[in-house]
């Protein structure tokens, strides 16, 4: 019964990891052929400034994404109030970005972020704020990108938390009400601790997904391929590890270097995930 899946995973997943590992110690010519170059790719990782910058970009992006979690908890708590009307309507609307193709989302936001004709700056000008070129200004583009990320994931996290909230027995709240606890106290003393397994799950998932961020960054930064080829001035400050991987392996055809970049990504995911599982003992309460 496990044979088809095992074979499939072996061919397309397990064996490829070994192959990628092998490639990371080679250099490929423009038209094929691998030469064993030892750890040269890994040493080059340290020398190339774009790698360090990509790591920094990715980590910053990931940290900002985590801010979306408390927001989703709060929204879920608001939505979970008893007798709230229109709950399913809200839930549907908040969930909409989750089912929308990230490529389309990025195109849409790139247009909203347009420095001269974008809706965001238009709305800001109404309240007298001078907007930026959100998608091409190196100093703001990553934050603008992270905002899209939060916007996209909000509905997903909210649904996870709603499900978690519905698992909290009403008796806890009744007891709190009898003790005279206000909404804030109830939220921090009951909701958050009892929801902590869901919060933990969402955090782990958010970190893993954010570290692999590609679609949004790729679509926000890509510039038309005229013969000249130009680059978005914000690219160095937005390029994620995953983007760098794609660029090195599939645009510049440097499979070996790309493979090494992929292992950097793996290292970060492993470290961050292990770290979270370590830390969970301190704050996650399993009922």
């Amino acid at each position, binding site marked *: 019964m496990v044979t*088809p899946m095992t*074979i*499939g995973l072996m*061919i*397309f997943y397990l*064996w490829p990891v070994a*192959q990628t590992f*092998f490639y990371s110690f080679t250099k*490929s*010519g*423009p*038209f*094929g*052929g*691998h030469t064993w170059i030892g750890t040269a790719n890994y040493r080059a990782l340290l020398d190339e400034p774009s790698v360090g910058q990509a790591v920094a970009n990715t980590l910053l992006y990931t940290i900002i994404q985590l801010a979306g979690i408390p927001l989703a908890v709060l929204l879920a708590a608001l939505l979970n109030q008893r007798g709230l009307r229109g709950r399913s309507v809200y839930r549907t609307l908040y969930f909409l970005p989750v089912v929308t193709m990230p490529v389309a989302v990025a195109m849409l936001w790139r247009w909203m*972020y*347009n*420095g*001269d*004709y*974008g809706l965001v700056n238009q709305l800001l000008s109404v309240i007298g704020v001078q907007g930026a*070129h959100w*998608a*091409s*200004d190196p100093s703001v583009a990553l934050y603008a990108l992270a905002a899209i990320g939060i916007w996209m994931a909000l509905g997903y996290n909210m649904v996870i938390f709603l499900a978690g909230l519905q698992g909290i027995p009403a008796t806890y709240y009744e007891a709190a009400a009898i003790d005279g606890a206000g909404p804030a106290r109830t939220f921090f003393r009951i909701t958050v601790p009892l929801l902590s397994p869901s919060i933990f799950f969402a955090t782990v998932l958010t970190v893993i997904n954010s570290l692999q961020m590609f679609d949004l960054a790729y679509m926000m930064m890509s*510039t*038309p*391929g*005229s*013969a*000249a*080829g*130009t*680059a*978005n*001035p*914000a*690219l*160095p400050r937005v390029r994620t590890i995953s983007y760098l991987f794609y660029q090195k392996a*599939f*645009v*510049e*055809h440097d*499979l070996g270097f790309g493979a090494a970049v992929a292992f950097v990504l793996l290292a970060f995911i492993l470290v961050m995930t292990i770290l979270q599982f370590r830390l969970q003992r301190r704050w996650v309460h399993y009922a």
Partner: protein
Amino acid sequence: MRTKPGMKRRGTRLWSSSVVVGLLLSATACGGGAADDGKVELSYRIWDKNQMPAMQRIIEKFQATHPKVHITIQLTANQEYWTKLQADATGGSAPDVFWMNGPHAQLYAANGMLLPLSDSITSGRVKPANYPEALTRIYSYQGTQYGIPKDFDTVGLWYNKKLFDAAKLAYPDDTWTWQNVADAARKLTDPSKGEYGILAPPFNQENYYDTIFQAGGQVISPDGKSSGYDQPATLSGLRFWTDLMKAGVSPSLKSMTDTYPTQLFESGKIGMYYGGSWNAIEFAKNDVTKNDVDVTVLPKGAKRAVVIHGLANVVYAKTKHPKEATQFAEFLGSKDAADIQAQTGAVIPAFTGTQEAWITSMPQFHLRAFTDQLAYAVPFPGSKNTDAWQSKEAAIFGPAWSGTKDITAAAQEMATAMNAALREEQ
């Protein structure tokens, strides 16, 4: 790629094939393959959908005289063309005949991916004199010709007549110099109305390569071994643009990233634009530009120059039918094929004397400006691995265009990076 232990590789292939055969209900894998009854199947890969009908007509004409040959067009998206071609060439499955461009020509030629076309020339079936000399040179590597020019493009000064009229300025013409451009740009700029005199993006072919050559500088040394970015003349060609950026007569680099320069020009609020001959067809369709703009030759610097780039048809070195593929490539370079291309207006055909149809295809624009410049056209610079250094230009020059870095330092940095890349090629 893939020179891992051969056994294992074959193993992987067999394994996955059998799994797939077992799992897939319908055979979705590609079929194809040629029958061996004297029929010759050729594939021809291109990237421009707009040119597909013209290419199809050329093929029909060729097949009429070569009944045993059947040619199929493979259309690949522009962005992915080189990725896919490189992969296919690696795997030995590149198309028999395909489009080649300047930056990739030497890479493919030097790595033995292209069939030399020396016989076509020595036999007189292809005459280099029929094509602009600078264009033919792009497709010659170490004295051997690898491509037959298909079409070409040059750059001209597009200008918005309405804005010039409003500012009471005379239209640009062939007497203009760099100074005229800077002066007019200043007078046409009115940030309060969102109007700018010129677009000065850091594009190489349309912008700084032209001015570098006009200043008497060079991008790469004639022997292809060293960068020209550390020469004073080259620097002044770059500085022409960064000065315009500094003067505030162009939209910012950020604006030109958010909205592509041609589209800013099409919004009718830009006075001048160094744009390609390829823009004509789009400008002829746009509501604003179809009436309001015209084009002239590039203004003069220390001397006159314009970058010429163009495509060529090349034959894959490992084609199974070198004879027929070469015949087809020769036909693609013929006057007959050029005439068919000219009618579409999409490109300027390379065959001398066939350009008239293109020039008259959009009479509202002075398209002759693009062919008038052939006399002093300079080939698009390239080396064995052009991408390796050209892809660094945008990132290094960007900050100089934004004003956060001095152009002298940027040019020096580019020269260093380029020289390092060129050393790798040797």
